[in-house]
């Protein structure tokens, strides 16, 4: 099922700023291990879903997976071969805005080697540089 908001105040938004690093959502808060992004990007809802599927299939439904990002931002696109004008395009897909340091996914209840491998598979679905982190490594 597509990951998108149930209800939004405004159907279309401006692009906004992606400056700075993540100041919230940058720790391993729920699980034992996490996948942290090192780049700033818009991550589409289908990319998040692909990562979730890759992780859960690799873990063979063991453990727990926490998705720490949500695609709140609508992105519009204009139909092909359209002349200029006639207003802004229709909402096409949804993205999550991530900053360097944002924790994308967290995993709990599985050994580190398995979690590391699952995160590697998930990272391959994304167009951003990521790194695998653990609760312990984040503390020191």
């Amino acid at each position, binding site marked *: 099922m597509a990951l998108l908001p149930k209800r939004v105040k405004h159907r279309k938004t401006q692009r906004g700023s992606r400056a700075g*690093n993540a100041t919230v959502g*940058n720790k391993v808060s729920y699980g034992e291990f996490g996948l942290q992004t090192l780049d700033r990007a818009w991550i589409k809802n289908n990319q998040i879903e692909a990562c979730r599927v890759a992780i859960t299939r690799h873990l063979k439904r*063991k453990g727990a997976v926490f998705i720490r990002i949500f695609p709140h931002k609508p992105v519009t696109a204009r139909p092909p071969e359209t002349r200029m004008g006639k207003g802004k395009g229709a909402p096409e897909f949804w993205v999550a805005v991530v900053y360097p*340091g944002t924790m994308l996914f967290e995993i709990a*209840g599985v050994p580190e080697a398995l979690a590391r491998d699952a995160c590697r598979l998930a990272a391959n679905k994304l167009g951003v540089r990521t790194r695998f982190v653990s609760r312990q490594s984040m*503390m020191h």
Partner: protein
Amino acid sequence: MAKILDISVEPRERSNSGVVNRLRKAGTIPAVMYGRKIQATNLQLNAKNFSSILKSSASDNILVNLKVAGQAQDQLALIQEVQHDYLKGGVLHVDFHAIAADEKIHASVPVLLTGVEAAEKKGGMLEHILHSLEVHCLPKDLPESITHLVSVLEVGDALHISDLKFPEGVSAKLDGHVVVAVLKEPLVAEEVAAPVAAAPAKGAPAAKAAPAAAAAKAPAAKAPAKK
């Protein structure tokens, strides 16, 4: 009881961001010491020594004996907060809370669970919900961590704060009914078993075979007809 570690610190005169950033580059961590009976003081300490102290401890909230340069008396303090750089690593800033040895303190103590593998052999999956717990005690009674053996849990059981054993003089701030960990049943076991059952029929789409055993039989039956 947690060990009290000695840390040498120096007073810091300037506190603007440029100076503080230069200090960090030079291998020094800016810090502050405050308390009910003392005036807040800006401090600085060696980053390498402090990181080694943190690595050897179970959590950031530890008791320390501050040896402030130029002061005759040592100051007992609790590390109230450590700001980490979650992107580059390292410590950005440390808050020392000056305390009195005879006054109760609030501190966050990690909850460590042992016997997790033994518990999970029963067929469940241990979900650790509460990783640290705020406790109320005298500084001399502050435990380094609270450890609990979870191998006695059965599938479906939950570990509550009331089940934890606290050292004498230590009490939890949260209510006893708050859940620390749960030994849950695995989400869906059949989904893993289904592709194995459908494996002999080569060419059968694994994704279609996955949802249930009944659904897995249908592609398996169709597969020979394709040959």
